[in-house]
Structure formats: C-alpha cells, structure tokens
C-alpha cells in the first residue's frame, strides 16, 4: 500500500488537495491511502521515523511557513524514504525545475493554476506513482545498483547494452538503450553481475541478450540500439559456444 502525504500551509488549498486525492483514490480504487495531511513539515518526518518502512507519495508546498522549505523537507524525506515519490506544489512556474528534479529527485511538480488543471495534474501523479509501485512489486526484474553523483540508482538489466572501461582509470561507462552513464568502478567484477553478461574484450562486458549482430570479420558486436563494442578473438569462441 502506498501512503499519501500532504504538506501545505494554506488551509483552504490543503483541503482542496485532500479532496482531489481522496476522491480519485476512491473512484479508481487505487491501493493507496491518504495517511497524513498537515501544515507542519515536522509531522511528516515524525511519522516516517515512527513507521520506517513507509513508501510514500508526498505532495509538498515549496513555501512552507516554517524554518524549512519544501525543498529542505524533501531532502529529509529522501533520507527516510529512499523509494518515495515527491511532488511539489508551487507558484514558481518553471523557475527551479532542475532543482526539483535533480536536487531532491522530485517525481513531478504542479503549478498552482486553475482548480481544474491542478486536479488533473494530481490525478496524473497518482496514476504514475501507482504504476511505479505496482511495477516494483510485481516485477522479477534484475536490477544493477549504481552510484552516480550523490544518488543511488537501480538499473534494469534489460536496459544495459554493455559496460566499457573508460580511458581514465577506475571510470566505467555504462551504455544503456538511450543513455551513457559514467561511474567509478573497475570492469573486472562487472561480468559477474548476471548470467547474461559476458567479458567480450579487455575493455568491454556485453549483455548477451541485447546483441543484434556479431561482425566476425571486424570483431565488432552490434547492439540492438545501434551502438557497437569490440570483441577479442579469444572471447569470440567463448561467445559462439
């Protein structure tokens, strides 16, 4: 069950949010519950400390009349609930979009606009959070844990094309379907993270499930996303078996 929280210091707006959320949960019969709606940010932190296994969806106002802002509150919530979804409710427009998304890894933000638009945005957020929650519960996905910057991320094995050891020591480039992520690691241990991974070259560990084509003449493996990695003669025999 996903727990929903609201922190909003304007009472009328808080009531409005509560109503939208409760109505939608009831209407769609979502596996969620509005557990706490408050104007005091410390109530949420106290609740999380008392119930450490909570996975929440948080609707936070950015300007709280308190000694911490919504952004500061979000950072503290992150510490207590790593998997939680945070949504900001704000008047600021796009002014600090990147801060919302990257600093506190917010799921989304809602601009205080006309009531209909707010209601629609809230419903979208509830849907997304619900879908994510269901996905996390039901999946038998194998995840690779990676630390980039200050955040820890879990990456689905099926998204991984290959790992490539970087030119600089200890840097490894992770090639995903649509992105490349650098992180600090050595390539040696990466072949052991799952059966589908194979050390095909001194500098590459490839995901066998995402191979499109092997060019034997040029010793190149083509991946399903069009990227290519190298394969050594010795590894070629092992791979073909």
């Amino acid at each position, binding site marked *: 069950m996903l727990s929903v929280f609201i922190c909003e210091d304007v009472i009328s707006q808080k009531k409005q949010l509560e109503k939208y959320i409760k109505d939608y949960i009831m209407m769609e019969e979502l596996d969620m519950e509005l557990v706490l709606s408050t104007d005091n940010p410390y109530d949420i932190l106290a609740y999380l400390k008392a119930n450490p296994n909570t996975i929440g969806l948080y609707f936070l106002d950015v300007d709280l009349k308190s000694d911490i802002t919504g*952004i500061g509150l979000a950072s503290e919530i992150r510490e207590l609930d790593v998997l939680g979804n945070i949504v900001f409710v704000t008047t600021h*427009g*796009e*002014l*600090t*979009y*990147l*801060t919302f998304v*990257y*600093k506190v890894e917010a799921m989304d933000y809602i601009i205080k606009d006309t009531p209909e638009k707010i209601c629609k945005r809230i419903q979208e957020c509830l849907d997304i959070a619900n879908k994510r929650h269901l996905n996390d519960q039901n999946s038998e996905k194998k995840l690779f844990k990676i630390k*980039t*910057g*200050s955040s820890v991320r879990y990456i689905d094995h099926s998204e991984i094309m290959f790992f490539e050891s*970087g*030119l*600089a*020591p*200890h*840097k490894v480039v992770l*090639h995903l379907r*649509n*992105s*490349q*992520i*650098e*992180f*600090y690691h050595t390539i040696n241990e990466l072949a052991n993270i799952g059966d589908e991974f194979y050390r095909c070259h001194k500098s590459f560990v490839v995901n066998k499930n995402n191979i499109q084509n092997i060019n034997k003449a040029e010793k190149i493996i083509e991946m399903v*996303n*069009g*990227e*290519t990695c190298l394969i050594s003669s010795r590894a070629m025999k092992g791979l073909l078996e």
Partner: protein
Amino acid sequence: MQYRERDDKVIIFLVFLQFLFSYISTKIISQDFKLSFKELLYVLITGSFLGFTYNYINIITVLFLYIFLIFLWRNKSNIYEVLIYCSLGMIISVLSDHISSFFRYAIFGNKSSSFKQLLVLHMPMYYIIGLILSSLASYVLKRILANIKNQNKSPIFLTALSCFIWLTYVFSIILIRVSGDQPRLIILNLIFLSLYLILFFGILITYILISQKTYETRRREDEYMYMERYTQDIEKQYNELRKFRHDYQNILTSLEGYLVQEDTAGLKQYFYSNIKKHSDRLMHNEYMLEDLSNIKINGIKSIIATKIIYAQDMGLNANFETSDVITRINMDIILLVRILGILLDNAIEELLYLGYGQLLVGLIKYPDNILIIVQNTCRDNLPNIQTLKKRNFSTKSSNRGLGLSNVSDIIDQCPNVISEIIVDNQLFIHKIFIFDKEK
C-alpha cells in the same frame, strides 16, 4: 653504423634489428601499446627487405625505413601526429645509434666493428639508450600535444619542426657516410645531432610559451567581453524593474481611485485590461537570469550568461537556475568553460534548427559534488550517443565536428569528473558531476 664485414645475412639481421627498434620507439612515442600479429609480420617482412636492399642502396635505406614506418602508422592518428611520431622515432633511433657507436669507440677503440662486437656490445647499448630516450620523448610529447589540443590548435608547427630536424639528420648521416666512418667524424656528428635536438626542444618550448601567453590573453579578453555583456544585461533588467516600480505606483493610485468611488465595474475592467497583463509579463523569460548572481566564479558566470542571453536574443526559450551559492568548483575553470561553451553552442544550434523547444542550464550543489546540467529539446531521430561522440561527427554537414568528442576528451583528463548523457523523449540531457575530492 657501418658494417665492415660484408656478410649479407649479418647485414640483413642488423638492419632488421634497427627497423625493429624504430618501430618499438615509434610505438612508445605514440603510446600505442597494442600488439598485433599483422603489424609484427609487416615489420618482419619490410625489415628483411630493407636488409637485402642495404647492399645496393646503402644508407639511403634509412629513408625507406621512414616511409615504411609512416605507412604502418597512417591510420592510427591524423597525418600531422603520425609524422611527428615517426620522425621522432627515427631521430631517436639515429641518435642512440650514434651515442652507442661513440661509447664503443671510446671503450674498444677503432677496430671494434666486427659482427660479434656489433651484436653483443652495440645492439644492447643501442636498444637501452634508445628505450630511455623514447620514454622521455613520449612523456614530453604527450604533455605538449595535450597542451596544443587544449588550445584548439593543430600540431602542424610541431610536425614541420620534427620533419625538418629529421631531414637534417638524414642529410648529415649521408654526408658522414660519403666521407667514411671515422671515429672523429662520428663524434663530431654526434655533437651536431645533439645540438639539433636541443635546438628542436628549445624552439618548441619557446613556441609553446608564446602561444600559451597569447591564448591566455585572448581568453581574458573573451572573459572581459562576456562580463561586460552580463553587466549590460543586469543594467537593462534594473531599468525594467524601475519602470515596473513606477507602473506599480500608478496602478496602486488608480486602484485607490476606483475604491474611493466604489466603482466595481470600472475596477473589474481595469484589473483585467491592465494588471493581469503585468502579471503575465512578470513570469516572462527575461527575469530569469537572477540566479546567475549565485555563481561567484566569473569565468563560469560569464560563459553561461553570454550563451543564455544570446539564445534569448535569438528568440529562444532559455533559462538558468541554481538555488545554491557556488564559490568553488574542483576543476580547471578554463576546461570547464570550454565544456560549457561546446554544450551550450550545441544546444542553441539544435534549438535554432528545430525552431522550438527549451534550453535549461542548472548548477546543483550536493554534499560531495557539484552537478552541472545542460538540457535541451532535440530532434526525434538523433543518432545514438556513440555516434554523436565520434570525432568529426556533426549533425550538420559543416566542418565543426569536434563538439562532443572534445567534451569527452576533457572529462577523461579529469579523474574527479564524470558525465552522463541521455537522449530520450526529444530531450538531450548532459550531466557533469564534479567531485570535491580526487577519486
């Protein structure tokens, strides 16, 4: 070296050893440590071939050796660098041969050119001296080339210089061969050759120092220009603000007028026709550079300001944001400015191409690192990231394809910097994490 014993097999073998050394030396200098069977085969065949021809063309062999070397390297790097590597490899080969000959004469006197002595004394000494010189040259050259690359210059000057020195070497060894292989001449030649090499490095270092200075001056000029534009923009915004304050006063007065007269209908009309318009304008782009004052590093502030102001001038939707005060970034600021310049130029070009979309630039401070994000709308059918990162790749047909590959090169140089690129959902996002401590 000259071979007194006219034994063909011995000569083939010795010439082959020299070619093998030139090959190893060039490999060390170009820092290419990959061994391939094909290459070794090539060296074996051409080396033996050169050995055979030595009997007929004598010292001219050395020129063929050089050409074979260039041919072997031709696809490994661009032609300017290949010429530098091969010329330096040959210079070092000749120089170590001379030094080794000099010691041989010094220790064993004149009559020490028998095959046995050459093989047992000369060759090992030649290889050892040569390997030391090659490693030294490789170290120095790597730094010099990195320096040239950082200044966005082509190494053509270095190429010309090393080819010239190499040709002088060839000339002088041919000369000495014509007049006979006298110990004194060898010593004289060694002195000349060493002088040339010292001259070579002398000119090179002077050149680099001068070009570094001009580069530095130009960079400062650029930075000054950026700062000036930034100041002008701040002034413009300040004037806007003053105008707004003036309007605001007027609005309040008129509102009061309507209230005193209790004219609700007039008030309503006034509100929607005048005040609403102002509030819309307040949210408009041009007020969004205020976060820039949070950056206390001038170089970074000015490059972001200039590019974003430029983008806004071009009618694009471009914003910058940071909620943290940034006073220190653990990275060479010049390198970071170059990276930002490339990323922002790319983003602006893409938006101009699309004719719509948004550019967002942000700095975020974490406990142990600073994250820089450049995010822009991009076309749907962008090639995969590996292709985008290739040298000489460009989405346009024009000659500027050094963009992303340059960014990767710079980041590879910095052990405490890592990057992430996402191309998804018509968004191109480049993140750069700069850690406070070396990893």
